[in-house]
């Protein structure tokens, strides 16, 4: 057993930490989040140049052959700065899916441009009725010669507005809740019949709802094989859960530390409020919840890397803990900052908002507790 990072991993960790500390102060983050694009295009190019985008992509697919550990380190550092660049959406959710299951042609047409920063991607799996169930798919795709015709609706597609291509889950056979009969298609954003409704999300990022009306997609754009998209999707979401949990752990660290610092300096009743035992114990609990998340994050990431038989169970356990701890730490950070905690001006409320959405994305605590029990 070994919890240390190798030399390359330590290097990337330092590099990303430095970027967040030196080039991503709070004002910068807010102006990027509030810009039309919703993130910094020059940052994205920088990530590409530094090799961060392709770091966890296999060498066969044009990446640098790192593991989920490298992605974890990047995401944890991003979480500390509440980085809004869509690394999770483009590289983990969509990118890893093509890396593991895409054809050579798909890798060269989609993944390589993504690694070099020229293309943005999104993964559209949720529908209005599906909540967190990846196999609840009503959007349908019907064969039409060499093509498939897609009709349906996809909900809250993260990074939807910027994505040049969207991976869409659609039903090619079976009934609404069946795991079999789901197929993944790579669809051009400018396809005829595909309409995006774009909006800002509460965590300062961007998403879209997609309407598909007779969108024609070549069968070359099927990822993996027909009717067998569920497992591919499910394993991409597992990777995404590891990544978003790492981001959450980074955000939690900032929140508990910021709260501790604040209570040392905020004076009421002639003393710093950090001297009050009720607040001390609250912050100790925040700190412990953070540590517990970090432990499960390392454990689940390593199990996933090793292909352990209980890796999926570990990932659901992690996501449950992240949802629970994220809520507690976020809410208490706001509470202990008093009125300042609910202002838009202070960063604390924004970390709280991101932890709130992270608690829902890819399944909330109820969903993962149930899944954990079933595995």
């Amino acid at each position, binding site marked *: 057993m070994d919890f240390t990072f190798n030399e390359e991993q330590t290097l990337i960790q330092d590099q990303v930490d430095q970027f967040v500390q030196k080039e991503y102060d709070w004002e910068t983050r807010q102006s990027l989040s509030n810009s039309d694009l919703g993130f910094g295009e020059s940052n994205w190019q920088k990530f590409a140049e530094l090799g961060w985008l392709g770091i966890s992509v296999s060498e066969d697919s044009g990446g640098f052959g790192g593991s989920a550990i490298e992605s974890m380190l990047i995401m944890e550092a991003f979480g500390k700065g509440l980085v809004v660049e869509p690394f999770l959406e483009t590289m983990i959710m969509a990118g890893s899916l093509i890396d593991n299951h895409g054809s050579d042609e798909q890798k060269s047409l989609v993944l390589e441009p993504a690694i070099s920063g020229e293309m943005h991607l999104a993964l559209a799996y949720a529908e209005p009725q599906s909540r967190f*169930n990846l196999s609840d798919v009503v959007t349908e795709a019907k064969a039409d010669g060499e093509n498939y015709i897609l009709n349906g609706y996809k909900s809250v597609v993260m990074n939807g507005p910027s994505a040049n291509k969207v991976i869409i889950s659609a039903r090619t056979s079976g009934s609404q809740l069946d795991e079999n009969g789901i197929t993944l298609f790579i669809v051009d954003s400018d396809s005829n019949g595909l309409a995006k409704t774009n909006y800002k999300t509460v965590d300062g990022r961007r998403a879209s709802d997609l309407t598909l009306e007779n969108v024609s997609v070549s069968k070359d754009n099927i990822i993996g094989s027909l009717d067998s998209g569920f497992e591919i999707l499910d394993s991409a979401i597992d990777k995404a859960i590891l990544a978003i949990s790492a981001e959450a752990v980074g955000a939690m660290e900032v929140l508990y530390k910021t709260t501790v610092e604040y209570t040392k300096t905020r004076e009421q009743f002639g003393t710093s409020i950090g001297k009050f035992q009720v607040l001390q114990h609250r912050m100790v609990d925040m700190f412990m919840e953070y540590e517990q998340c970090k432990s499960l994050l390392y454990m689940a990431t390593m199990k996933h890397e090793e292909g352990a038989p209980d890796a999926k169970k570990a990932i659901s356990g992690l996501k449950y803990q992240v949802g629970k701890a994220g809520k507690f730490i976020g809410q208490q950070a706001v*509470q202990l900052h008093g*009125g300042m*905690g609910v202002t*838009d001006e202070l960063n604390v409320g924004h970390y709280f908002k991101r932890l709130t959405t992270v608690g829902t994305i890819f399944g909330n605590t109820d969903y993962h507790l149930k899944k954990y029990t079933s595995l």
Partner: protein
Amino acid sequence: MDLKFSEADVTFREEVINFLETEYPDDIKEKQDKRIPLEKDEIVRWQQILNKKGWFAINWPTEYTNHEELSVTQKYILQEELAKANTPTNIPFGVGMCAPVVYTFGTDEQKEKFLPSILNSEVWWCQGYSEPGSGSDLASLKTKAELKGDKYIVNGAKTWTTLAQHADWIFCLVRTETTDIKQEGISFLLIDMKTPGIEVKPIITIDGSHEVNMVYFDNVEVPAENLVGEQGQGWNIAKFLLAHERSGIAGIAALKRELTRLKDLSSDIPLGEGTLLEDVQFRNKIEETEIELTATEFTELRTLAAMSQGGSPGAESSILKIKGTELQQTISELFVEMLAYYAHPFYLENEIGTNETVGPDYAAPVMPHYLNYRKVTIYGGSNEIQRNVISKAILGL
């Protein structure tokens, strides 16, 4: 002991229901049902309709309202039916906060000057309590009022002042003396917001709304006759007012409505082969909340019954503040949980209720409400402070 309503109470309930059917304006109802924030004139219009019927200032002594006094049970029925119909909540700063201070501690001139315009909602008030350096430790406040001739000269800053941007007057706690015991140098002053030297600056909260403000005072001249009670008596008035504020803070009737709404909406959300409401995990949370809510409702009823026997709300109101606000947060959280991904799209107040939004038509205000309601365990004396009050005043620790 008896839980049954008398025949007279049943008749009263029918009267309230009939009143709402005929008098609750359709345009306001539509906005309320869609959770679209109301304009000031709409709130005023509704408060005036209530007042005409004698159902606005229901806690005032009848000599100031010229209306019949309602019994505790009637007040309970009225509030329950108003909440069920989802009518606008009264803005409390005038009718529920400033007025009780004026009719309890004010001079006859002050009563004549201020009470009628509060009663008909012509004059809007806001509350000048917290300061940047004085939150939980309210008595450490520094905003200074110096008596010069027949005027107080006020300098300082107040914060978290709700609706100051719409208010005509502000009631303030100010420091009139520097004393060894900080509570003894505080006075209660009424200030016209149009007085030169007052500046209001918005504070935007995490839900993106503008509800609270900073209010700055730069050599603001206030007639000495606007002092309520004696100079240096302000802290006693503040304590009286905080107890009053807390006693209505639970908002039980509205919470019952929201919990019912949560059940209705979640029974329409498919989950696998069933609905979200049928999901054991979600349902248990709703039921736990319902039990806690019922307990809080009856704790409030017991407090109100004691008050009607001549008691005054004391530390018991802290129980209601804690339980009520925790329930408000729990229910707002369950709404977010119910919506799942559709709680995430972010809309400003002016986009709520328009065609711009995605997801279910009730989705847009849900997350802003959850975020905004993190304030309720902080304001009115944080829940940590309330627990201190209970521990000291009730448990004697």
